[in-house]
């Protein structure tokens, strides 16, 4: 039983981590959070579905087009729902990004339809038996791709110029601006990247979760909880917290029942907020005087 639960939790947890990492990237660069991340998950799955299943494109062609669409979505969200408010030093971006998400969900209902559709994958046809547990091969692919992608992002931050610009902006807008970094453009890029990460999670999840207009809502919310638990300023903390949260959910559901799963999960969020507001794996922020 425990092996079964670990496999379930690992697949789900790495998706939470991938989406939550997007929260970290925008928060670090602009102190804002894109609350339509959940809908980016859905858009990734829906666009991939329309191209791959609806129009019958080969997957290698559908994937890059989907990623570009996601990046564009991130840019639009930042331009429409974040930048105007950031400029006015208002926190209305919070409501505005939620609004964008709701609009996106309802547009998807109109143009994609209201019922869930199946996303075919050769890897979800016959389950494998590993350590006595049944696993669809696709469920193993999800954490592998997820973790690889997260490692890639981390590497990109440390090694590439664009990544260094992102980290510089995260450190200080003024200093980065003085060093000739275009702060606005960097924030836009952060939104594009976070949207792409969420969308990849959506594409990965589609064969397991089915494709529907509302598929991202819950995962977006839980990923935010994960970001808070892991420490929204700590990318590594978020990855660890995401995977642990997925395992935690599976184990609670398996041994205590689903009824208490959300209660314990969100109670954990409150406990973390009280005991370590900077997150389990984060560090208390340095006060700038």
């Amino acid at each position, binding site marked *: *039983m425990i092996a*079964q*639960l670990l496999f*379930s939790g690992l*697949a*789900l947890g790495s998706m939470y981590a991938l989406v939550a990492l997007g929260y970290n990237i925008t928060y670090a660069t602009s102190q804002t959070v894109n609350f339509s991340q959940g809908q980016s998950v859905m858009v990734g799955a829906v666009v991939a579905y329309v191209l791959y299943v609806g129009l019958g494109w080969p997957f290698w062609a559908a994937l890059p087009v989907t990623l570009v669409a996601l990046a564009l979505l991130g840019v639009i969200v930042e331009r429409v729902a974040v930048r105007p408010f950031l400029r006015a030093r208002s926190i209305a971006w919070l409501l505005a990004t939620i609004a964008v998400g709701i609009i996106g969900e309802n547009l998807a*209902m109109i143009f994609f339809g*209201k*019922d*869930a*559709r*199946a996303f075919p994958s050769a890897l*979800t046809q016959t*389950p494998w*038996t590993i350590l006595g*547990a*049944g*696993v*669809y091969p696709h469920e193993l692919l999800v954490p592998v791709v997820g973790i690889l992608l997260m490692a890639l992002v981390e590497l990109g931050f440390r090694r590439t110029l664009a990544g260094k610009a992102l980290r510089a902006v995260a450190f200080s807008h003024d200093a980065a601006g003085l060093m000739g970094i275009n702060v606005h453009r960097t924030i836009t890029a952060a939104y594009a990247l976070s949207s792409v990460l969420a969308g990849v999670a959506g594409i990965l*999840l589609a064969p*397991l*979760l*089915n494709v*529907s207009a*509302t*598929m991202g*809502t*819950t995962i977006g919310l839980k990923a935010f909880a994960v970001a808070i638990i892991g420490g929204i300023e700590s990318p590594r903390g978020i990855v660890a917290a995401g995977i642990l949260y997925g395992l935690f959910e*599976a*184990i609670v*559901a*398996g041994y205590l*029942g*689903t*009824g208490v799963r*959300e209660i314990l999960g969100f109670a954990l969020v409150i406990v973390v907020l009280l005991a370590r507001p900077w997150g389990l794996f984060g560090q208390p922020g340095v006060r700038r005087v």
Partner: protein
Amino acid sequence: MARRTSLALLIVLALVVATVVPGFTQAKPPVVVALVAAMSGGSALSGEAIKRGLTVAIDEINAKGGVLGGRKIELVVRDEEGNPSKGVTAARDVIEREKAVAVFGGLHSPVGLAMLPVFHELKVPYVGTWAAATNITRNGRTPNYMFRVSANDDAVDHFLAKHVVEKLGAKKPGVILENTPWGASNQEGLTKWFAQMKVQPVGFEKFNWNDSDMSPQLLRLKNGGADSIVMVANAPEGAQVVKSRAKIGWNVPTVSHWGISGGRFAELTGELSESVVFVQTYSFFGKQSETGERVIAALKSKHGIKGPEDILAPVGTANAYDAMHLVALAIEKAGAADGAKVRDALENLGEYKGLIKTYKRPFTPEQHDALTENDYILVTWKGGKIIPVAR
């Protein structure tokens, strides 16, 4: 005096003109009926299916000259979005402003229950076409304004429990249901009926909407020694239950409430769909009665469907079709477009040969559910089509 005579003459003239000139007879006001159902959101398919069933019936009635000596029936539709308070507002609106004489209800039981006091206050009958919560019709009120041409949870639960225990010979059924009032209503019904059959379910496992992996819940049932599964779910989550069951390599009979027929369960689960049997009130597959053929033909010409496999959420369409005809008969019997009189007439209708069955006496003061357990059918999927299973 002369003046009064001329006035009387004028009135007589007006009456003559009204009966002789055809333009006047056509101007008879329509009789309004309303649909308050979820037309958007996750259950929008059900609302659309109900609307189609009502429209097909209304077109038939109007083609034959309408009701009450030539008055056409007119349908107004309101979206309650699955939200009880919006349902209450919509119910008031269609009765007070649109003068509806009967209101049809949609898929969501909580909305039907919330609107219940409105129908009693404004004295207009509600006729449910989907929502199955037992206490919508069994509400203890006299006179009772709530009617239903649909399944009711209590009877479905008995139907499912009986099938599992008597037909499958299960000793330890495991139940998995959604974590909503609908799930709770069925947990109550199943607990009661299993107890009466002296069978103790292994457990009642729950899941939330949009949950992706149900293997933890199923493992609990499996480890508890369950020998069959009773499922209460809508299509997306039902599909996840079946896929998770296959994943953990657990091959036990699975019977389901009808929620899984409201979406694309067969597409979502592929061949696994053939491992589930579930309840319906009607199937458009297989040999159809004359009425069945007529309804399918009307759906084809109006909504461009190609065959029964395109009739999504078929029970909504079938239930609504019969419900509309019953309401029209009641309006005729009442002799007036008056909610209270239509209510009384509904309880005293004679035989009606409908789509789902021939109704001997559809409703009585004690029985406000036109369909009973004997009308339910057990079906399964075969190659993406719903086919009846021998009982």
